């Protein structure tokens, strides 16, 4: 399998704190890649650096065969990396449908003049946006809530909506930051089906997760971060037996 994302020696310091230290990892096309580690290990920082929300102190990324320009979040999204947030960040006072429609912003072009004149091209594009958004709501299974405000959705549905919005940007890599956090067992099981479906549809998924059972069952490969350093990277069975990993988690 070919490499989709390659991170080379990524470091990030916040003042004296070494949040990430020389982290290198590669994600292969079409796999589900888990990023785990104890609290404060630097998982979310890695996501934030990757998606351009905070710049790396050093290190480079290459994505889909080209070097990744991470100056601004929108260029990362443009390149094909979409993310969700650990604490759900939806557009709370917009409907579910509108949330997903905003996600199409990146792949559409209508400007002020098109909007004001409502030209044939703009109308066609609007229809396409809405149609795609409805499809995506169906895909994640919340089409019946399309016209509800995002803040009125249940917690599990909000997670799904955030995934639908990320999918609307036509990503090659979907980065999910603790998608199962706060979910009950039923919701987690449904989420697992959804993520497996994403993989079988050819999407590459990167996953931060605390739910060990979910990670081990779902991921093709897992990397473990501890104090900002990568201490293991392998298939789940081997990672589970790794002595460094056991030490990091149990402090033994």
């Amino acid at each position, binding site marked *: 399998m070919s490499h989709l994302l390659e991170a080379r020696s990524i470091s990030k310091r916040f003042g004296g704190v070494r949040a990430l230290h020389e982290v290198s990892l590669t994600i292969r096309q079409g796999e589900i890649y888990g990023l785990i580690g104890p609290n404060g290990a630097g998982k979310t920082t890695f996501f934030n650096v990757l998606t351009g929300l905070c710049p790396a102190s050093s290190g480079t990324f290459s994505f889909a065969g080209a070097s990744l320009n991470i100056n601004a979040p*929108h260029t990362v*999204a443009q390149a094909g990396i979409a993310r969700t947030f650990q604490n759900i960040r939806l557009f709370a006072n*917009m409907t579910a449908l*509108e949330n997903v429609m905003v996600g199409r912003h990146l792949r559409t072009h209508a400007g*002020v003049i098109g909007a004001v004149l409502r030209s044939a091209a703009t109308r066609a594009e*609007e229809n396409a946006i*809405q149609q795609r958004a409805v499809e995506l709501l169906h895909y994640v299974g919340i089409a019946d809530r399309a016209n509800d405000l995002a803040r009125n959705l249940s917690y599990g549905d909000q997670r799904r909506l955030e995934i639908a919005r990320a999918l609307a940007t036509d990503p090659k890599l979907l980065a999910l930051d603790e998608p199962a956090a706060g979910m009950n067992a039923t919701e987690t099981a449904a989420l697992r089906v959804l993520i497996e479906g994403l993989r079988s549809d050819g999407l590459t998924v990167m996953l931060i997760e605390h739910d060990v059972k979910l990670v081990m069952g779902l991921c093709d490969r897992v990397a473990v971060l501890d104090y900002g350093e990568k201490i293991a990277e392998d298939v789940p069975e081997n990672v589970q037996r790794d002595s460094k990993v056991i030490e990091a988690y149990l402090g033994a």
Partner: protein
Amino acid sequence: MQTNKYRAGLTVLILSLLILPFALSAAGTAWVRITNLAILFVFLSLGLNIVVGFAGLLDLGYVAFYAVGAYVYALLASPHFGLHLPFWIILPIGAGLAALFGVLLGTPTLKLRGDYLAIVTLGFGEIVRIFMNNLSQPINITNGPRGITLIDPVRLGSISFGQNDQFFGLVMSGPMKYYYLLLLLLLLVIMVNLRLQNSRIGRAWEAIREDEMAARAIGINTTRIKLLAFAMGASFGGVAGGMFSAIQGFISPESFVLTESVMILSMVVLGGMGNIWGVVAGAVLLSFVPELLRYTVVPLQMNLFNRIVIDPEVIRLLLFGLALVLMMRFRPAGLWPLHARQREFDRQAATQ
């Protein structure tokens, strides 16, 4: 059924708007002028609504764009420079220049939100006004605090909006002609607003208002979209300013003080930030009620006490404050808030 009722209502509204100036001029031409100013305030509120209501960027210096538009018109159509360009050339120039000023204000404030943004925009409004006050030396551009006089009225062909005319036996005063011109412009402005709101750009504005970080993460170039909001909002202010110049025939920096910005913001907030019809209602209400008071408070007191006990200006401010307090208590989202409206996206599309 529903659409029939809607259509009937719309027809009544349009007809009453069309005959309004005739009814008003029976009560005095002053009322037509007041209506014209109210329409200008609707323009301004709708412009500010793009920045504050759609994109969620608090702007306390909005009157600066009004001033830019007004001065552009005044300088290009008055004896001050001896230029007398027609209004349909000046209005786009005014709108364009105001938009440029919008970008000028937006660029340094991209990273600011809330209170901090409010302070900077407030400063910007003051800077523009003070410039207008002082740009009489060394070269006399704005004529300083004395303002610019004898500004040309709007002319369309042989019809001048500055004087009375007779059409088909009906006498049309200047303000009445302006009323119809403003009504036409208003229709245009509302249409532009409605279409922008329901567009890719409008959704991006809303997204930035709701959660800027999430908006960036899904690929919205927030820099560009925010500047676009500032520029679009400012251009409406520029158009309103140009019309203000033409109608008044005289402008001075005194017309563009901070309280005007605050008043426009109050209209937006009172009506319901982000909801176009709410903002229109807010602007109309806050334009007319003070005038109604002006014409009722004095005669009422004269009748009751034979003298003026409380100055009408005091009552106006008192009621204004009271209205804001009551509103914040009972309708904090405005009289007609954004999401009370029916969603334009039909449910069938989603459940098909």
